[in-house]
């Protein structure tokens, strides 16, 4: 492809969607085409699933956490029935998998991993970060969780117990981190901005109020 514009003439590389850019993407494309050809899936169903996933983000988790920090009764409901608590805030986390929220305390710090694949609370948080799916994270989070957290900037004292949750089956886990000190005067939206995706996985803790800007 060659075109002339802005007074120059050179080939421009086609803008790629990313869908055709790797061997695995090519394989998925082929499988998708076959599923559509054989009337097992429609293109619209594929697109609607993509949109479903794109509509979810860690911001949902941040809203749940911020509400739990300011409303103890909501926190109780979040810990006992995460799906229902999400529904209360207008998030549709319906689907066959169950959600469990685990609470960080001064005594116990929780960390989430899926050693077998990439199980993640997608219906609430969307897609996991790439590192969550990496072999290095999946293997090291279970046998040296403290070293992994140090690499994310969290050096836990030895008197804090580390609880690793390997979400190997039908339950998806999310961490309820501790509310940072110095946030007593902050409102719900301001608090939600302190809650990072990584703190919902447990590799780190929420931002300090000064850092959140």
């Amino acid at each position, binding site marked *: 492809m060659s075109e002339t514009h802005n007074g120059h003439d050179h080939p421009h590389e086609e803008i790629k969607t990313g869908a055709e850019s790797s061997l695995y993407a090519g394989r998925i494309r082929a499988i998708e085409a076959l599923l559509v050809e054989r009337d097992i899936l429609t293109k619209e169903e594929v697109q609607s699933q993509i949109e479903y996933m794109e509509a979810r983000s860690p911001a949902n988790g941040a809203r749940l956490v911020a509400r739990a920090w300011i409303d103890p009764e909501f926190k109780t409901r979040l810990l006992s029935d995460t799906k229902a608590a999400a529904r209360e805030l207008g998030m549709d986390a319906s689907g066959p998998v169950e959600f469990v929220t685990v609470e960080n305390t001064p005594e116990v710090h929780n960390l989430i991993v899926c050693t077998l694949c990439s199980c993640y609370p997608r219906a609430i948080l969307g897609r996991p970060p790439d590192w969550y799916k990496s072999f290095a994270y999946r293997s090291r989070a279970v046998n040296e969780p403290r070293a992994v957290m140090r690499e994310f900037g969290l050096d836990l004292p030895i008197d804090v117990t580390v*609880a690793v949750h390997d979400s190997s089956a*039908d339950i998806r886990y999310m961490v309820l981190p501790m509310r940072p000190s110095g946030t007593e005067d902050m409102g719900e939206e301001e608090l939600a901005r302190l809650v990072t995706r990584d703190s919902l996985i447990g590799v780190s803790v929420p931002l300090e109020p000064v850092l959140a800007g």
Partner: protein
Amino acid sequence: MTARFDPGDPVRVRPEDRRGHIRTPSYVKGKTGQIETGLGAFKDPESLAYGGSGLPDKHLYKVAFRQKDLWDGYAGSPDDTLYIDIYEHWLDPA
């Protein structure tokens, strides 16, 4: 169908070397832990993965292991714990 195990029961994960879509990772096979809680019954993923009905449902448990029982030379607190969800047919009383 009633659950076979109760919270607090010591259990050992079966050391079966089975291929395919199993949800029991190798690092807990043959290891002894303790039932933390029952999580209810779910369709059997080992059947669902191959187009099966997933029936009968399988009880699922959150099982707690002491990290130092899982890994030689574990660097951390002796209280550090690993929780993992294991289907009943992978568990024996310990």
